[in-house]
């Protein structure tokens, strides 16, 4: 089906290509949620990427303010105005209505003259000025939507949303949402006392499918980037559905416990206390892959690149040996972590560099970035499934804070989502602390149930292969 792409990275994926041509799309949200920026990007991309001239109708801003704010995001609207593919029209709701209603209206004439295909109306909340009652507002809005449909333009109509005491934002359903062909809802929600995160959700979209749910997005130089949640439909894209292929972990003794190694395309949680050897397992896993010709990626959300390289040097794990596939190390400051941006960069690496093995250190920073158990679980679900579709095998380092007892680890929120769980623990036995490793879960495959002792020395972590437990003499 024909679509009008927004040009916004990620949003078109959520909309399965874009909007139905000629739709009147409501974009509502709280202050600062990004409504105007989304609308401007829609019009800007139309003119620069799709050859579709556009009109910006603003009821509150001056043209030069719109141009200045757009320039801060890297969009030169002045140049587009010069090329006659964009017009910014400051006006009033009543004048807009009057001059758009008839074929000889000034705005109708402007649309015809420039061959406009897209329009942003910022914002329809101002039409309330024309109305004495809710019924009248509804009539005015319906007339506006019908007028826009008749014009053949694909329109974005922003609308302000206010919190009402005792009424959660999600419960607010406006008559505008009923009348519009599609409705997007933007929110700017507190993560904790110092941070906020932006989300976009498609509430409705007549005549087209979309990926449901709240999707995280960013506004930075270049505009909005939306990070779509996993679309279960993507699972059908995976063609490698043959026999299970085992991959060596590169950790002596561990493959034996996993009955041959990790399963290709599966994500395994490696949980354990600080200093337990999680990073060593990750590095050995990547080094082993590189030796076998599989490019790797280590994403650190807690250590700087410099610290990590020292750690690798101390472990004497050779990551980039001559003739081996490359292993890239990517570091991000914990305070700057955007979980979905991290996931997108991993997916991009899988596509562009053919990365086959990924290690992410750690889930703690991802959990902290969300500060919301349900969203963290959703992210892990997305990570596991999107990497599976790409055939990428991954280790998620971290795990729960507190005890690493198997029973506690098994009951964590993400235990059911990941494909495998390897636990590291300290065991107090016979007057000494011993380090033990166990495999708690390996989806669809057998594994050892022992808690086996391990050592960390030059070359990395080594599991004692004989069948003795950490509790033995």
């Amino acid at each position: 089906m024909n679509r009008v792409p927004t040009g916004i990275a990620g949003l078109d994926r959520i909309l399965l290509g874009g909007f139905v041509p000629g739709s009147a799309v409501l974009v509502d949200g709280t202050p600062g949620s990004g409504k105007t920026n989304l609308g401007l990007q829609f019009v800007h991309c139309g003119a620069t990427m799709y050859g579709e001239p556009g009109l910006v109708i603003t009821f509150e801003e001056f043209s030069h303010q719109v141009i200045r704010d757009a320039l801060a995001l890297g969009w030169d609207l002045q140049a587009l105005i010069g090329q006659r593919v964009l017009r910014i029209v400051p006006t009033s709701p009543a004048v807009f209505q009057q001059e758009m209603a008839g074929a000889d209206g000034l705005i109708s004439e402007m649309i015809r003259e420039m061959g406009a295909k897209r329009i942003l109306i910022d914002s329809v909340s101002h039409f309330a000025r024309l109305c004495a009652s809710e019924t009248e507002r509804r009539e005015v809005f319906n007339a506006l939507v019908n007028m826009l449909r008749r014009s053949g333009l694909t329109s974005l109509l922003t609308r302000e949303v206010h919190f009402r005491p005792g009424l959660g934002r999600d419960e607010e359903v406006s008559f505008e949402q009923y009348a519009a062909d599609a409705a997007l809802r933007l929110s700017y929600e507190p993560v904790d006392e110092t941070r906020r995160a932006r989300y976009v959700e498609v509430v409705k979209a007549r005549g087209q499918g979309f990926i449901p749910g709240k999707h995280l997005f960013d506004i930075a130089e270049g505009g909005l980037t939306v990070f779509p949640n996993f679309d279960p439909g993507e699972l059908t894209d995976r063609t490698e559905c043959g026999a299970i292929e085992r991959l060596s972990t590169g950790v002596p003794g561990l493959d034996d416990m996993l009955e041959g190694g990790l399963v290709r395309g599966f994500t395994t949680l490696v949980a354990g206390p600080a200093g337990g050897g999680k990073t060593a397992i990750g590095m050995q896993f990547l080094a082993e892959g590189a030796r076998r010709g599989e490019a790797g990626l280590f994403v650190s959300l807690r250590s700087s690149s410099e610290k990590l390289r020292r750690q690798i040097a101390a472990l004497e794990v050779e990551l980039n040996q001559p003739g081996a596939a490359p292993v890239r190390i990517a570091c991000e400051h914990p305070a700057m972590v955007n979980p979905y941006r991290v996931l997108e960069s991993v997916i991009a690496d899988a596509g562009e560099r053919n990365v086959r093995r990924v290690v992410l250190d750690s889930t703690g920073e991802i959990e902290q970035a969300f500060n919301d158990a349900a969203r963290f679980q959703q992210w892990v679900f997305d990570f596991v499934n999107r990497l599976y579709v790409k055939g990428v095998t991954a280790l998620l380092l971290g795990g729960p804070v507190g005890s690493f007892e198997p029973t506690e680890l098994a009951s964590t929120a993400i235990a059911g989502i990941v494909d495998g769980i390897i636990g590291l623990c300290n065991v107090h036995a016979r007057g000494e602390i011993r380090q033990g490793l166990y495999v708690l879960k390996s989806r669809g495959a057998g594994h050892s149930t022992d808690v086996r002792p391990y050592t960390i020395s030059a070359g990395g972590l080594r599991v004692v292969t004989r069948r003795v437990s950490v509790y033995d003499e």
Partner: protein
Amino acid sequence: MSERCDEDPLVGAIDSPLKLEIVTYFAGSPAAIDCADGIGMRLGYTGSVVGPLLEELAIAGVLRRSGADRVPIFRLRDCVAVRSLLDLVSSREGRSAMASRMRGGRE
């Protein structure tokens, strides 16, 4: 196609600080189409304050007025002289010279 009009009468028509403010607004928003109430609200005045001045600017040829049987709507005239006028009011020096002229040439 641009309309033709003379420049001097246009500059001369800007005979008050508020008219200068209105023309400066249109210079920054050349595609604006609005009624007196709308323009007044953006500039922080009422429609009854800016309305008569908009009419005068329309008569002088700076603005176009439409909506004979409805609420009058104002927008910029598209001609070389108006563009020159906009260039003038868009610069600090130009605005300063015009303000000085309004004060009778006193600096």
